[in-house]
C-alpha cells in the first residue's frame, strides 16, 4: 500500500463544491488532495439545470440566497466568461393563474434591483401578441408574458475547470478513487483516509490535517464512515433532454401542483425540468420514473402545447443535498449551506462536512468554507477566486481564425472555445489534424486526447459529462467505438479494456435513455443495439463490476 501526503486538507467529493473548495485552498497555498469516486461533476452537478441564475424563486422566502446567487453569478462571469451563456426567459401568464400580471411584475421589479449584480437586463412586459410573435410555440391561451434575464453554464466543465486550476496550483486530484475508511487517531481525530482506485484496485493512504466531506447527497454515508452524522433532506430532481432546441429562449411552465419549472436551451439540446421530491433511496441507484416524466411533460404542455412532438433523447437525474428541515414542502426548503465541524458536533475532530448550497453560488460558499478552514489551519491568505480567471477564462479567442489555422470546421471550434476558452489552440495541438469523432455534437479527437492526457479523464464514460460525447441523437452508436480507440491511444489501453469501456459507455447511455425511449428515438436505439450488441461473435466483457444494477 502506498502513502501520500501529508496534505493540509483532504477533500472527499469532486462535484462543484469539492472542486470549488480545492481551487480556493490551492490559491491560498494550502496543500490539498481531492478524491472523487466517479468522474468530476458527474453526480448532482451534471444533473442540475446548469444555470447560475439569481434565484427569482428564492426572493419570496430567502432573499439572502437571491442576493448571494446574483453576486456570485457576477463573479463567475468574470472568471469564466467562456463557460457562460445568456438565457433570456419568457414567463407566460395565463388567465387562471392565481397571481396576475400586476403582482408578477411587482416581483420582477424587485428582482430587477438584483440584476445589475450579474449583468442581467431588467424585465420587460410583453402583450400576448408580442409574446407569440417572439415565440410562436407558446400557448395562445396566455394573457401576456414577461421576460427576464439569466445565465447558463456548462456545469460539468465548471467543475473540471476548478479542479484543473487546483491541480495547476499544486493540488492532487484523484478521480475514480473511493474512500474505504478514514484514518483515526486514538482521540478520534481524523487524519486522512484510505482510498481505493476503482480502476486499478490500488489502495492509497492519504494523510491530511483536516478532512472535508463535500460529497453532496452522499455526505451522510461518507460522514458515517468517520462516525459522524450529517442530517440532510435530499430531494431528487430530473430533467428531460430534447433532441434539438425546443426554443432559443427559456420558457416557464407550471406543474400541476403549482411549482415553477422551465424548458431551456443547452448546446444543441433543450432541457426541461426539474422535479423536487424527497428522496430516501441510495443516490447511486437513481431511476427516472413514469410519474416524474408525465409530471414534467404535463407542465411543459401547458406553456408549449406542441411539446410532445419533440423527441425526448434522454434523462438526467440527481439528488439535491438540501439541508435538513422538517415540515416544509421540498420546494420551500432553504438552498442555504452549512460547514459542519464534526469535532464540536460529534466528537470527531479534524473532520468537516460542507452541505447544502446551490450551483449558482458555489464560489461564495467555497470562499466562506475556506475562510473558516483557513482559520483552523492558521492560513491567512485571502480568497482570490473571485478575481483569478479559471483556466481558459483569461481572454477571448478568435474562433474563425483558430478554425482556419487548424483546418477544422468552425462549429467544432465554437464548442471547443465554449469549454476551453483561451486554451482552445492548446487543445487542438493534441492532434496533427483534428477530426470529429461524433456527429451529433462535433467532438474532435483532439479534445479527447487533451482531456485524457492533460486533464483527469480516465474512462470513456467520463467523456459524456466532460466533452458531451454521445449525448445527442445517436447516443454513442456512431461515436463510442471511435472515441474508445482515441482514448486507448492516449491512455495505452489494451483491446480488452477498450472493448469493455465502450460496452460500459453504451450501457450508461441506455440507462439515461430507457425511461423516456419512444417515438423517433426508437429507430435510433434499434441501430444503437445493432452496433453495440450485434457486432461480435464472442461475448465482450460485460461491465458488471463497475456498472450499477
Amino acid at each position, binding site marked *: 500500500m502506498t502513502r501520500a501526503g501529508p496534505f493540509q486538507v483532504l477533500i472527499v467529493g469532486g462535484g462543484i463544491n469539492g472542486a470549488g473548495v480545492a481551487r480556493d485552498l490551492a490559491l491560498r497555498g494550502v496543500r490539498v488532495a481531492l478524491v472523487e469516486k466517479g468522474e468530476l461533476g458527474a453526480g448532482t452537478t451534471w444533473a442540475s439545470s446548469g444555470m447560475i441564475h439569481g434565484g427569482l424563486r428564492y426572493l419570496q422566502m430567502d432573499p439572502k440566497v437571491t442576493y448571494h446567487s446574483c453576486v456570485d453569478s457576477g463573479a463567475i462571469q468574470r472568471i469564466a466568461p467562456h463557460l457562460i451563456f445568456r438565457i433570456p426567459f419568457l414567463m407566460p401568464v395565463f388567465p387562471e393563474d392565481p397571481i396576475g400580471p400586476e403582482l408578477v411584475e411587482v416581483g420582477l421589479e424587485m428582482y430587477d434591483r438584483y440584476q445589475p449584480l450579474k449583468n442581467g437586463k431588467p424585465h420587460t412586459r410583453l402583450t400576448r401578441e408580442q409574446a407569440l410573435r417572439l415565440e410562436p410555440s407558446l400557448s395562445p391561451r396566455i394573457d401576456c408574458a414577461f421576460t427576464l434575464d439569466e445565465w447558463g453554464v456548462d456545469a460539468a466543465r465548471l467543475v473540471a475547470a476548478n479542479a484543473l486550476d487546483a491541480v495547476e496550483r499544486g493540488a492532487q486530484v484523484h478521480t475514480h478513487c473511493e474512500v474505504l475508511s478514514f484514518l483515526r487517531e486514538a482521540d478520534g481525530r481524523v487524519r486522512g483516509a484510505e482510498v481505493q482506485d476503482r480502476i486499478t484496485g490500488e489502495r492509497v493512504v492519504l494523510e491530511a490535517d483536516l478532512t472535508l466531506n463535500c460529497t453532496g447527497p452522499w455526505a451522510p454515508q461518507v460522514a458515517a464512515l468517520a462516525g459522524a452524522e450529517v442530517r440532510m433532506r435530499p430531494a431528487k430532481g430530473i430533467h428531460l433532454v430534447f433532441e434539438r432546441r425546443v426554443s432559443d429562449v427559456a420558457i416557464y411552465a407550471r406543474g400541476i401542483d403549482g411549482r415553477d419549472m422551465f424548458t431551456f436551451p443547452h448546446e444543441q439540446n433543450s432541457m426541461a425540468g426539474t422535479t423536487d421530491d424527497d428522496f430516501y433511496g441510495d443516490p447511486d441507484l437513481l431511476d427516472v420514473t413514469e410519474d416524474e416524466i408525465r409530471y414534467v411533460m404535463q407542465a411543459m404542455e401547458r406553456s408549449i402545447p406542441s411539446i410532445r412532438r419533440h423527441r425526448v433523447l434522454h434523462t438526467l437525474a440527481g439528488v439535491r443535498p438540501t439541508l435538513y428541515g422538517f415540515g416544509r414542502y421540498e420546494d420551500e426548503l432553504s438552498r442555504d449551506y452549512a460547514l459542519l465541524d464534526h469535532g464540536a458536533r460529534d466528537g470527531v475532530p479534524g473532520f468537516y462536512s460542507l452541505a447544502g448550497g446551490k450551483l449558482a453560488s458555489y464560489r461564495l460558499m467555497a470562499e466562506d468554507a475556506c475562510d473558516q478552514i483557513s482559520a483552523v489551519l492558521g492560513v491567512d491568505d485571502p480568497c482570490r477566486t473571485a478575481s483569478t480567471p479559471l483556466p481558459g477564462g483569461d481572454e477571448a479567442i478568435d474562433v474563425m481564425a483558430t478554425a482556419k489555422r487548424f483546418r477544422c470546421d468552425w462549429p467544432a471550434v465554437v464548442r471547443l472555445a465554449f469549454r476551453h476558452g483561451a486554451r482552445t489552440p492548446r487543445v487542438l495541438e493534441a492532434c496533427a489534424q483534428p477530426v470529429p469523432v461524433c456527429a451529433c455534437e462535433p467532438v474532435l479527437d483532439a479534445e479527447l486526447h487533451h482531456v485524457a492526457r492533460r486533464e483527469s479523464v480516465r474512462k470513456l464514460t467520463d467523456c459524456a459529462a466532460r466533452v458531451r460525447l454521445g449525448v445527442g441523437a445517436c447516443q454513442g452508436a456512431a461515436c463510442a467505438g471511435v472515441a474508445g480507440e482515441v482514448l486507448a491511444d492516449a491512455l495505452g489501453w489494451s483491446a480488452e479494456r477498450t472493448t469493455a469501456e465502450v460496452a460500459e459507455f*453504451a450501457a450508461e447511455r441506455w440507462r439515461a435513455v430507457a425511461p423516456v425511449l419512444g417515438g423517433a428515438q426508437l429507430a435510433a436505439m434499434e441501430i444503437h443495439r445493432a452496433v453495440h450488441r450485434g457486432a461480435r461473435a464472442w461475448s465482450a466483457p460485460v461491465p458488471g463490476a463497475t456498472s450499477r444494477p
Partner: protein
Amino acid sequence: MKAVVLGGGLAGATAALRLAEGGASVSLVRRGPGATALSWGSLDVAGASPDPTGLPWRDPVGGEPLTPAQRLSFLLHSRPFHPMVALFPERDAASAVRRVAEAARALDGWLSPQGVRVEGTLDETRLLANVRGAVRAADLAFDDVAAGDLGHASAVLLVDVPGLAGWNAAAAARALGAELQALGVPAPTVHVASLALPEVLRADVARPARLAARLDDDAAQDDLVRAAAPLAEEGRTVLFPPVLGLYRGTRLRALLGEALGGPVAEVQGAPPWSPSGARLDRALLAALRAAGVRLVTGEARGVVGEGSRISGVDVRAAEGDASPELSRLPADAVVLATGRFSGGGLAERGDRLVEPLVDLPLYDDRGRRVDGVPARRHLRRRYSDPQPLFSAGIRTDGRLRPLDAGGRAARANLVAAGEVIGGFDPALQRTGLGFALLSGLRAADEAARLGRGT
C-alpha cells in the same frame, strides 16, 4: 395479378422480384433507405451470438466451432418459436440448407447484373472483422467484404490510412487479435502498414463517404493501386477501411488484388457508415427497376377492401416538392415488409406502440402482447438484459399471413416478410438478412397463391 409490396428492404425487394418473375404486376412502396441500407455486408442465416438466446459459436457439448448449417439445424430444433422455424416446418436441416442455397443463388442472380455478388455457403465458417476490429461469424456475405475471411487466412494486413476519420488500423488490429483469441481459432499474423494516399484524394480524408465516392472514378482507382503497390506480399489477406469506391468497388478490389498478390476486402462498416448496406440497397433498387417493378417513394397510410380481402393500399407519395397526394394502388395481394422501428413497420402513435398500417397485434419473444401501451413499458434498465421491445413484431401463420388478436389470418390476401415479424431480437439472434431473404421469397409464393384466390 396485381401485387403491392410495402417496404423496400431486402425482404420486400426479394418478394417483389420473385412476384415479378412469376408474372405479377408489382408495385413496391418504400419511404427510403431502412435497416437493409445500414447493414454491413454479412448475410446471416443462423449467425453465432454470445447472447444466451442466440446461437452458439461452438458446439455446447463437443466444443468445436459450428458451421452455419449446423447452427441452422440447432435453431430449427431448439427455438420452436423463432419465425424462421415456420419457414421450414419439416425441420429438416439438409433440406433447409438446400433452400438457403437456392435463395442465395436467386438473390445473386438478381444482384450480380447490378455489381453486387452473394458469396459463401452454409458449410463454411467465415469470420469477418469490422472497422473496430470486432469479429463476427458471417454465414453468407457480399463480395465487398467476403474475401476478408480471418478464419482461413495465414497472414492479414490492415491498411492504415493516416487521417481517415473513423479508422484506426492499429487499434483494429489489437482488437482483432484479442477477438480471435477469445473465439479460440488459430489466429493469422496481423500486420499494419500505412498507405500514403495520392494527393488528389487527401482532401477528403476526414469524410469517408466522400473519399469512397471519389474512388468510383477509374483514374482515382488507378492512383490508389499505384500508391498501394509497395504493400504487396504474396498470399496475404489485405483489409482496407470501407472506402474502396462507393458503388464501383469491384474493379478497384480486382486491381488491388492483382497488385498486392492476395485477397482484398473491406472491413465491415458500422452504422452510420456501412457502405455495404448502401451498395446492397442501390443494387436492389436497380434490380427492381430492371424487373419492371413500379417503385413508389412514399408511405402507405392504410389498406382498403371489403370483408377480409384487401383491394387497395392508400399511399402518400413523397416525390418532388409537389404537395404529397394520397393515391390508391389496387391490390390482389399485399406483402407487408415494413421492418421494425427504423423501417417504420413498428411505431409509437400517441404514446401507444402499434403496427401503424393494419393495426396488427404485436408480440415479444415470449409471446406476450406488447402493443397499445408506451414502448418504454417493455424495456429494462440494464443494457445487457433482454429487451422485450426489440423482439416485438407481428405474428403470422404457417403461410406468413399476419394474425389478428384472435389468432386468425387478419386479411385473406395479406402476407408478411422480414423483421416486421416478431419473436426474435435481431441484434442478439442473428438471423438478420437471411430471414429477410427467405421470408421474402416465401411471402411472394404465398402472395401469388392468395392473390389468385387459391
